[in-house]
């Protein structure tokens, strides 16, 4: 049964009058991992950044089309993100970036709670402790940092920092987690740990991951969307697309003939 949490209808985005993605229609399945892949410059990241309305922060950026997120309100099945406060959108759709970017002036503890602290949401000490422990556990970082929670995150390794950033995003209890090439700045072992983590996390959250690494898309995703020159070329089960793509461009991309 198809159970969509996020739908895109006729989404187009441009920057400086240059069209980056056009007329994209896509549905993301709840608690599944969807990988968006394609050669560099195909609009993967832009598509991702449209989803939590980060794209519009770029100067001269334009977005058209509809993005619908499963509503928390029972009467209304889907809410349209373009007419929702972007701040609210971003709390329900978390994001993790290419480079690990923990806040340098906050401790590890504060970093996990950053979403609350920076928004000025008051938490009781016990509540805060629970959130921190739960989410550091979720990203398998608790045992490694529990004695250093009051230290700044900068002494952590790249992979640990990235997991901290994932914990930070998860602490806001988002429905969807966007990952923008989360391992492109990491070494192979950290990459593998993050991939394991991503697969593990789909139980709690719907994941959309952008990757230019075909192997990674294959390893972690349930569904694959292939973008080429701003168009959605193919979408389907990872198993199908990786063994038997319908489109010639997808085939070429997977076999390394375009990149």
């Amino acid at each position, binding site marked *: 049964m198809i159970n969509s949490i996020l739908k895109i209808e006729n989404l187009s985005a441009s920057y400086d009058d240059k069209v980056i993605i056009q007329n994209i229609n896509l549905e993301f399945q709840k608690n599944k991992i969807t990988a968006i892949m394609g050669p560099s410059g195909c609009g993967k990241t832009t598509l991702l950044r449209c989803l939590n309305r980060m794209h519009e922060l770029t100067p001269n950026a334009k977005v058209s089309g509809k993005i619908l997120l499963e509503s928390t309100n029972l009467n209304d099945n889907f809410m349209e993100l373009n007419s929702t406060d972007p701040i609210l959108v971003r709390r329900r759709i978390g994001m993790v970036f290419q480079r690990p970017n923990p806040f340098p002036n906050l401790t590890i503890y504060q970093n996990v709670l950053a979403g609350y602290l920076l928004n000025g949401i008051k938490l009781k000490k016990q509540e805060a402790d629970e959130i921190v422990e739960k989410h550091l556990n979720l990203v398998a970082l608790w045992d490694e940092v529990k004695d250093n929670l009051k230290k700044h995150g900068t002494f952590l390794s790249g992979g640990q920092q990235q997991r901290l950033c994932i914990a930070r995003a998860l602490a806001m209890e988002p429905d969807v987690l966007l990952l923008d090439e989360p391992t492109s700045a990491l070494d192979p072992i950290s990459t*593998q740990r993050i*991939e*394991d983590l991503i*697969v*593990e996390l789909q139980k709690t959250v719907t994941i959309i991951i952008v990757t230019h690494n075909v*192997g990674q898309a*294959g*390893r*972690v995703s349930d569904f694959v969307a292939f973008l080429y020159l701003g168009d959605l070329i193919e979408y389907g089960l*990872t*198993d199908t697309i*990786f*063994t038997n793509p319908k489109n010639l461009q997808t085939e070429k991309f997977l076999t390394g003939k375009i990149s």
Partner: protein
Amino acid sequence: MTHIFQERQSILNDNIIEEATIVEQMIKKIINALINKDTNLLQEIIDGDEAKVNSLVIEINEMIIQLIARFQPEAGDLRSIMMIYKINGDFERIAKKSSKIAKSILLLMDEPPLKPFQDVPKMLEATISMLKDSITSFTTHNVQLAYDVCERDDIVDKYRSHISRELLILMIEDSALIQKSQSIERITRNIERIADLATNIAEDVIYIVEGEFIKTKKSKS
């Protein structure tokens, strides 16, 4: 490798073992059919089991292709998956041979049995024990057992040449028995092939574990 890969790999292993069990059952059914003169069992093999194995074979093939396409396994993982791919093919052939044997036996059932025919169950027993052990060696990665299976190929070969010799004498004595003898000959040839395939499986197990291809089979003169 990710969880997904490990998960899939274990499903793959489960499937191949399920396949092995069915194949083993098919041969056991043949033996039982021979002993109890039970044609229903043979019919089951022909109508049901072979198809069951075939659909499993397709499923396993697909899984393997997906595994390789998505996870690009290496070293031990790669050897294991490639061998499962081969074993899968071997099982498919064993199932086909078993079905052929069942068909041949079905034709012979109505008629009074020939003397050499009594050796066929024994040959089957030897074969099934090879198959069983090769599967066990696969699931337990027991190389010793695998080598043992390879050795035992000779036993089955001996059964076959023994039966062939007897059939030859029978045919020389009574030309009316030629057709029947040929049926039995076909059956024993198929059984021997099954034993060969079991040896193949054992060799594949040796490759999975030790990473070296071996060929124990002496070329037939």
